[in-house]
């Protein structure tokens, strides 16, 4: 996808793809306890080193909202511009549960593979 990126090494590409694949699950995890606004989501993801640039997140959130996984509401903030608060719909909650089990399966599979690799 990032064929023309500055750093087009296999490592970078693979890492980017991994992160991108986990991004939906991570966003749902952040929202599982209630309303969070965009900048807060960005801050958390960045602290967890899950995203490098914000650009990827906006279309993702937009798409999740269109797919009825998230809903949002604009709220004015006391200082600064209005904030867009997102929260999970029932569909989103269901998706979160599904992704969690998917992630655990994947994690278990990779663990098994790693162990297998060690045994050899």
């Amino acid at each position, binding site marked *: 996808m990032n064929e023309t990126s500055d750093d087009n090494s296999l490592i970078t590409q693979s890492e980017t793809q991994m992160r991108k694949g986990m991004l939906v699950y991570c966003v749902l995890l952040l929202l599982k306890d209630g309303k969070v606004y965009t900048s807060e989501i960005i801050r958390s993801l960045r602290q967890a080193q899950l995203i490098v640039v914000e650009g990827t997140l*906006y279309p993702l959130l937009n798409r999740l909202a269109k797919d009825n996984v998230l809903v949002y509401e604009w709220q004015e903030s006391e200082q600064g511009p209005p904030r867009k608060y997102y929260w999970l719909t029932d569909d989103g909650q269901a998706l979160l549960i599904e992704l969690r089990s998917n992630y655990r399966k994947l994690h278990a599979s990779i663990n098994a593979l790693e162990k297998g690799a060690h045994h050899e």
Partner: protein
Amino acid sequence: MNEVTQIHLGRQAFTISVGAHQALRAYLDAIVKVVSDQSVAEEVELRMAELLSEHGISGEKVILPADVDFLKEQLGDPRDFKDDNPTLDDEEAEVDEPTRNKRLFRDTDNAQLAGVAAGIGRYLGVDAVLVRIGFILLVFAGGWGILLYLVLWLTIPAAKTASDRLKMDGKPVNIGSLREVAERADVKGAAQRANATLAGPINGLLRTVIKIIGFTFVLAGLFGLFGLLLTAVYLALDSHQVLDSSLFPIGITEHLLLYSALLTAGLLSLFIVLFGMAIFRHKWPLGGLITGLLVGLIFINLAVGGALAGDAAPHIRDRYNANTHSVSYTMPAFSKIDTNENRGFVIINYQAGSNYSVRYQYYGNPDLSNIKTTVKDGTLTIDTRNFDNTRHCDSFCLPNTYNMQITVTAPNMSDIENINFKPAENPPPDAPDSPFAPKLQTN
């Protein structure tokens, strides 16, 4: 390099150097080209403004090319904004506005008082003037309009933010509509400053009426408070006079009941004053906590008063009964009645009976010797001119009267001239059925 220009990023004004402006413009255009959705572009703009503020750029500080580079670093390459997985189901795009329904708020922007009528009008989609007329009609219908307005004022939240105002109209809350509301508010504010009498003649008249109502409330409440204060002072100085005299036997319950009633009345008067002030200032003059405490105090008072009254009522009734006496005189036959009674506290009843008699029924122990009851030449004369109905008291006396009921009985009332004979409406007092009914004593 000193050349700067003004731009708006997400509703905020920034000063930017020309070089930085070109770079930013190109960056934004590239992003807009990639994202299909205009709302994403607007959100990115907002985020840029936020990032710049966090980066320490606000007010007079100029955005330089280095700051644009910082933005690019944070937000990423325009290609990152590309959505790899387009929406699965475009028809579900409708769901993206969670607030389609109207919500009821007080429309303080178009308020004559607190915006209750304007808010209801908006909610129902009718002119606020109609709602106001409705409220005024209800005021004349026994004052319910005032109470209803007060309750709604307290329960309906005011539309404070732009998103509240959008919800009030059932409009979707998004960045575009929020901006629109903010701009409209600016224009409206400016127009109001330029010309304070934008409202139509009905609203002007309403405003005058409301001012007069407010003034009346303040005045009435102050009078009430003043009267209650006088009462309290008088009670404190001379409580025996009041409490010993009329229906109140002296007792701690009755004392407390009286003070509780005074306090409740005082608090209600205070609320009337506050309500009047609120009408003038278009704003409830006290904080929520203090208002809550006052309302709580009223309810506690009412509860205490109710309990006290329940305790005191039997005492008062017993005292009334114990102090109500009656005395009957059998008279010679008469066919005419002459009374000079025109004082309100003596009530004369006529009734048919087996003999000719006059009965006095009275509370307390007045001097009955001042009443002259005679029959001469077939004429019954009841002369109450010298009857003193006021209680003897040492100092300043409250109006303190003894009620006297006189019952004239004759075997054939229709034979008697000169009276307005009305058949007895009440059952004869000899058969008491009310707790206040007197105990019959016959001389």
